[in-house]
């Protein structure tokens, strides 16, 4: 084929004149090259594309072989505007290669690219930018800058990605552009497409890795996008986030590191304690600060975990290092399996992974212990892999597994690979020093090796034995004697030196042999290696001190030899020792101490892994591998003492879609000192979420809310009474407010949503607006109210973090937490700032909503209520009498574990299509229950479960509350699943009452009627009933209905009805809601008639739901 022929041409050329490629400067080449290039030039100048293509192919083949083709530049650059895509591509290849050398000529091509940048085809725009930014010509920097800026706001994500790629190119070309480039990076970081994310983070890492502040706002988004980013981008993002997390969160192992000295036991103990910390932040823990993981920290860990399953080893390694550096000790273990899996990969991958495993296994030995056998060595492994495996095996050795490991080592010693054998012997030595029990066995084994035929093996053994003997020399004079005999046969200097040192050090144990050895060595002194000579001097000195009678002359002799040695070190040492040991008149005070100096007890050497403390380099990095800082390496920062303000990561939900329009708002928020501790992490949006329920249910968020805290159950009855008294007044207020809200609504929509209204309210508000505007949704509006539905991806994470808090908080929820008090204050102030209105307690941004008595905060009196009580209900509500608890697991069948659940009627924030089910576990046993989690959900088609996070430990007598979400698909089919503890599994089933499948919706009376009009005929179910005896007033009826179904009351609207204090004779009560899963409207009308009769009408598209709901409400009302 043509390409190959091109190549062969080249080859042919170089065969005849072989010096071409290597020396382009010599004259001969130029002449002949010139000739050959002439025909290429001709081809390039022709009008035939095929000839051009052929020429370009040959040129590219030249480039590939590293030959100089620069003299063709003028001929090639002409073709940059060629129509033929194939030719064009190859011209690009050429340009990128040679533009730097021929800057002036390269400028000819620029206009083509500039035209390309405006092309309607995104791929052409992208490729133009790519080449433009790749030709390294300084003069076009301004053009590049402009092009990048423009491309950064291109419609096509692919072009934006190319822009991100171009940033580091420009930066390396002209570092002065940094500031402008950072602006572009900031802009691209806000991009929410996965295509761009990886590339822009790469640009960030190359241009401004220290500008961690740019990440804050994008942190959660990056975490959430991560799984969909292409694999290379994942690696870069994960590495960057590791560094980010190190600066922003607290050390999850902080409590353990305090206890580290107590090793094993402390490990478990603190583990438990940590759990407790999580469960109960208030519990006074002696001495230590309770640690609560930042939800954002948790988010990162959670979202990276699935990537351990990636096929790309680099991604797996990135996640592994993230877990190693960031996860609580107890969770790090999960990475072991994945890393072991990588060991099956190519040997280069194996090499890098083993390096990292070696470092990890020192810090966290337990992690890899189960995989010990995966590190066994095969004779076919390359030596470098063998040695690393050996390192890991040695690190993993402990009392329990040492015997198997030693057995393995024994086979290794017989290997043909001598380097590996030497390493094995050292490994045995290390095991022996670390594990006292096997020291003697190892020593015996090593002594046997002394009779090995291979000198290297013997030498290595000697060195290791020497180190081991130092630990307990008394018992081993036999070995020393044995080694003394060996000295004649061993030639390896290190080994000889070791033996001499041993004899010198322990000459008292071998008093007869030592002088003899010295005599022998004195004979050969001049021929020894330096290191051996030094040891001979050393031995002589020691013997002189202990046994001067026999060795005095020998010592003198050796010292004299040394005096004239060529090596100054040896001469020096000889002089020094002579002065020290041989008493003369002049000898100083020191010689008295000579014996002490030489024969001091020396500490046994500690045989340490070379991988110790390597973890101060970020694992998986080049620097870690080389154990030296590589250029451009970003230090892994130490954990901060106290966490920086977590609220910096808060992003208003509308921000996802429209970040620029909201800038001012953002700033305003940033200034505010938000909640100072853990609660704050959830940020304003999230807390608004949780708040919304208390607010939404309440009669009118307008005036009353501050008093009715969602968690308070006792108050309800009181306030009910109060409420009746206040009825009239309230109505006035309500009306007043209603007018106001109506007028204000559109504004509110955009301004207040982030602050005060949660998704719930927003949805309701949106409905309202929608209706008002007769369903013409302007875009911006939908964006601002979207949070609940479309932009799940983004909001999901926040809300999940919310769930986390929820869990932690539960036990505390009885007493209103302090910070929420503060918060509510804040909230109110904030709101009163926002709507400059006259009514005093006035937080009231929400449109007037009917009371939802059950769901949470109760409406109580309007005025003068303290600002201190929370509006912000904690998201798990304390089960009160009014919310019906269902039994999931009786404590007898559950063997002491009692499980109850209720429908909390909170919106389930991770997924708005799910019903929140609050589950309370109570452990009635005397022992703790562990690992409570859900398994094997057996669901009807379409149903989904979002499980709660596993409860690690539930101690005896404790109870804990969690929230899970179930999407029942608007059916009353039960969700079946298994509830698992660490020992048992229980079958459990949750069947929702029909009333729980819906969520309140705010409608005005008019809207209600309009919607009802659409749901006539088959969709309307009507029944007559007689009200029960107790259903005498409005309040009771409303309560009964809302207790049965999660609906909100439609305010009896605009006109006459409410204006007159006494309710009209035949009041009509309307309730509205929508089904959670599919969002179908559910409209309920109860019109009372005289004599306790009433008519109940339900309008709902889903007839089944309607029918069931009618039945339930009838039953409730007729009691």
């Amino acid at each position, binding site marked *: *084929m043509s390409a190959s022929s091109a190549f062969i041409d080249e080859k042919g050329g170089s065969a005849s004149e072989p010096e071409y490629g290597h020396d382009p400067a010599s004259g001969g080449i130029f002449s002949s090259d010139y000739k050959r290039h002439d025909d290429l030039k001709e081809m390039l100048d022709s009008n035939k594309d095929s000839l051009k293509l052929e020429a370009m192919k040959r040129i590219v083949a030249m480039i590939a072989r590293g030959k100089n083709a620069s003299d063709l530049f003028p001929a090639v650059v002409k073709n940059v505007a060629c129509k033929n895509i194939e030719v064009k591509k190859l011209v690009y290849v050429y340009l990128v290669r040679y533009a730097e050398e021929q800057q002036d000529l390269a400028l000819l091509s620029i206009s083509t690219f500039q035209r390309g940048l405006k092309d309607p085809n995104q791929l052409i725009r992208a490729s133009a930018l790519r080449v433009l930014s790749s030709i390294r010509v300084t003069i076009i920097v301004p053009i590049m800058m402009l092009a990048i800026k423009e491309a950064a706001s291109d419609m096509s994500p692919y072009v934006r990605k190319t822009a991100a790629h171009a940033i580091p190119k420009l930066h390396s070309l002209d570092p002065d552009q940094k500031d402008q480039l950072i602006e572009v990076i900031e802009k691209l970081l806000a991009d929410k497409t996965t295509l761009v994310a990886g590339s822009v983070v790469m640009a960030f890492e190359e241009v401004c890795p220290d500008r961690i502040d740019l990440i804050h706002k994008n942190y959660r988004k990056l975490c959430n996008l991560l799984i969909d980013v292409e*694999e290379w981008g994942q690696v870069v993002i994960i590495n960057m986030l590791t560094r980010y997390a190190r600066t922003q969160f607290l050390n999850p192992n902080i409590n353990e590191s305090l206890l580290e000295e107590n090793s094993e036991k402390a490990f478990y103990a603190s583990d438990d304690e940590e759990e407790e910390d999580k469960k109960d932040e208030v519990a006074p823990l002696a001495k230590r600060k309770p640690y609560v993981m930042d939800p954002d920290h948790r988010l990162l860990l959670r979202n990276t975990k699935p990537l351990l399953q990636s096929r790309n080893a680099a991604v797996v390694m990135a996640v592994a290092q993230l877990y190693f550096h960031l996860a609580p000790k107890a969770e790090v273990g999960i990475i072991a399996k994945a890393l072991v899996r990588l060991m099956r990969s190519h040997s280069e*991958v194996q090499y890098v992974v083993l390096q990292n495993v070696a470092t990890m296994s020192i810090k966290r030995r337990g992690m890899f212990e189960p995989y010990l056998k995966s590190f066994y060595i095969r004779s076919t492994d390359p030596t470098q892999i063998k040695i690393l495996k050996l390192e890991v095996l040695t690190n993993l050795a402990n009392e329990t597994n040492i015997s198997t490991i030693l057995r393995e080592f024994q086979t290794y010693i017989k290997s043909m690979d001598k380097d590996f054998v030497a390493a094995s012997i050292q490994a045995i030595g290390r095991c022996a020093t670390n594990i006292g029990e096997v020291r003697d066995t190892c020593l015996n084994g090593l002594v046997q090796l002394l009779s090995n035929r291979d000198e290297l093996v013997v030498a290595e053994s000697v060195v290791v034995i020497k180190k081991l003997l130092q630990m307990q020399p008394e018992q081993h004079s036999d070995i020393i004697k044995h080694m003394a005999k060996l000295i004649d046969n061993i030639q390896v200097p290190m080994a000889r030196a070791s033996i001499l040192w041993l004899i010198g050090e322990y000459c008292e144990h071998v008093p007869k042999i030592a002088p003899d050895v010295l005599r022998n060595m004195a004979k050969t002194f001049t021929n020894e290696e330096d290191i051996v000579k030094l040891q001979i001097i050393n031995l002589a000195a020691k013997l002189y001190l202990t046994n001067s009678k026999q060795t005095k002359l020998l010592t003198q002799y050796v010292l004299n030899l040394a005096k004239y040695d060529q090596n100054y070190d040896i001469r020096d040492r000889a002089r020094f020792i002579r002065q020290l040991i041989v008493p003369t008149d002049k000898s100083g005070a020191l010689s008295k101490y000579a014996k002490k100096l030489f024969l001091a007890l020396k500490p046994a050497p500690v045989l340490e892994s070379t991988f110790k403390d390597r973890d101060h380099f970020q694992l998986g990095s080049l620097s870690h591998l080389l154990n030296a800082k590589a250029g451009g390496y*970003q230090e892994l920062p130490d954990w901060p003492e106290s966490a920086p303000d977590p609220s910096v990561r808060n992003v208003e939900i509308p921000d996802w879609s429209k970040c620029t329009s909201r800038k001012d708002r953002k700033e305003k928020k940033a200034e505010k000192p938000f909640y100072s501790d853990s609660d704050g992490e959830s940020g304003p949006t999230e807390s608004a979420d949780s708040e919304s329920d208390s607010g939404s249910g309440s009669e009118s968020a307008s005036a009353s809310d501050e008093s009715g805290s969602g968690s308070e159950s006792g108050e309800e009855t009181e306030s009910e009474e109060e409420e009746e008294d206040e009825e009239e007044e309230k109505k006035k207020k309500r009306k007043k407010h209603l007018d106001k809200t109506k007028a204000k609504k559109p504004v509110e929509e955009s301004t207040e949503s982030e602050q005060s209204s949660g998704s719930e309210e927003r949805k309701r508000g949106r409905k309202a607006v929608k209706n008002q505007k007769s369903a013409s949704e302007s875009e911006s509006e939908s964006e601002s109210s979207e949070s609940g539905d479309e932009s799940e991806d983004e909001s999901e994470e926040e809300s999940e973090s919310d769930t986390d808090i929820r869990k932690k908080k539960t036990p505390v929820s009885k007493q209103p937490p302090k910070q929420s008090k503060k918060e509510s204050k804040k909230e109110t102030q904030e709101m009163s700032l926002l709507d400059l209105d006259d009514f005093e307690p006035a937080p009231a941004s929400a449109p007037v909503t009917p009371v939802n008595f059950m769901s949470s905060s109760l409406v109580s009196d309007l005025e003068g209520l303290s600002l201190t009580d929370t509006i912000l209900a904690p998201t798990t509500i304390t089960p009160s009498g009014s919310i019906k608890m269902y039994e999931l697991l009786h404590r007898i069948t559950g063997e002491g574990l009692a499980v109850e659940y209720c429908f909390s009627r909170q919106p389930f924030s991770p997924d708005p299509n799910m019903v929140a089910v609050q589950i309370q576990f109570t452990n009635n046993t005397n022992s703790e229950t562990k690992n409570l989690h859900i398994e094997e959900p057996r669901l009807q088609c379409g149903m989904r479960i979002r499980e709660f996070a596993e409860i690690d430990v539930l101690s005896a007598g404790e109870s804990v509350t969690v929230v899970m979400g179930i999407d029942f698909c608007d059916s009353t089919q039960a969700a079946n699943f298994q509830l698992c503890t660490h020992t048992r599994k229980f079958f459990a089933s949750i069947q929702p009452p029909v009333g729980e499948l819906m969520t309140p919706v705010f409608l005005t009376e008019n809207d209600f009627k309009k919607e009802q009009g659409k749901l006539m005929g088959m969709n309307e179910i009507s029944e007559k009933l007689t009200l029960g005896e107790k259903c005498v007033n409005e309040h009771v009826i409303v309560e009964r209905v809302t207790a049965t179904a999660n609906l909100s009351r439609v305010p009896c609207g605009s006109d006459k009805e409410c204006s007159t204090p006494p309710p009209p004779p035949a009041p009509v009560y309307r309730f509205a809601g929508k089904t959670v899963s599919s969002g179908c409207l559910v409209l309920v009308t109860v019109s009372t008639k005289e004599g306790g009769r009433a008519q109940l009408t339900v309008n709902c598209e889903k007839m089944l739901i309607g029918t069931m709901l009618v039945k339930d409400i009838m039953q409730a009302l007729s009691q």
Partner: protein
Amino acid sequence: MIHSLFLINTAGDLFLEKHWKSVISRSVCDYFFEAREKAVEPDNVPPVIPTPHHYLITIYREKIFFVSVIQTEVPPLFVIEFLHRVAETFQDYFGECSETTIKDNVVIVYELLEEMLDNGFPLATESNILKELIRPPTILRSMVNTITGSSNVGETLPTGQLSSIPWRRAGVKYTNNEAYFDVVEEIDAILDKSGTTVFAEIQGVIDACVKLSGMPDLTLSFMNPRLLDDVSFHPCVRYKRWESERVISFIPPDGNFQLMSYHISAQNLVAIPIYVKQNISFFETGSSGRLDITVGPKQTMGKTVECLVVTIHMPKVVLSANLNATQGTYNYDPVTKILLWDIGKLNPQKLPNLKGSLSLQSGAPKPEENPSLNIDLKIQQLAISGLKVNRLDMYGEKYKPFKGVKYVTKAGKFQVRT
């Protein structure tokens, strides 16, 4: 990140260079040659070589060294993994990744490298996208090309890169819609002298060849998914469904790809299909030795063991072997010191045996260690772990695809110590 790439063959010839940033002189490879010399075996060349101004990260594959030049900190695995991806892409394009094919297709290689990296950062590595950008050569096309003078570069611009499913191109059409899955399991094991298992595990992969039109959404389920201990997936697999339901749900890439790999490490689950009785001994005097090996079936689940090969790396002092094989052929290469015994099918009635004497270099001390045996084998129609595909369902398309599953068990790193 990746600055330059040099391809070097085992003889030390540098036959291709590509620079993504400024040109780096090829003299930087001298550091590599130095390390290469020191390492003796190509396997032992350190993957990362620091030089005064650069770092060289190297992989060795198909007798080619891929030497990349790095200037700043980058995760080494990132580069290694990328280089392997490059090699795989070559393999995918040219059928094999060898010096000759690379030289023959140098323009395509260059174009591929250009597309795969931009400024040293990976750009397009999915083979489906690359194939749209640069068409792979086929015999037919190269003939047409030589006649018409056109080349392999696509006329139309690809769209796949921009879709939400980056691994699949749009508008795939086949007349025969078929999906084949190969469950390939490899047994990694170390047996000791007495035949007891020191270590054994199963490494499995599911290779898929999916040729389906449109945008099929496939679901593959297993009879016994709990067997799988540790899995890794092609990016197309929906991880969440695996987590919750243990089914593999995915929109497949077009053509051949590796769907997943898995790992079964519980030792009791690993059946060892054969046993080896061996006796290798070297005599102290007379510079000779004896060798006697018998192979027999152990847990084969009623299937035949095929393609049985025993490889022995002999000690350096073994000069020649004079052996007699009851079945198959043996060959001793005195240069590489490798004894290869190709048995073929294992006959349980008449066990194959290799017996005879070895002659050693005279005067040399007898080897201390007996060489270990590496076994290769193949069992068709069996996944040794017992993994079974339950069913394959397709959603999203109307036609009925032809489906097939094949099981093979092979020996992976199967070693018998002696």
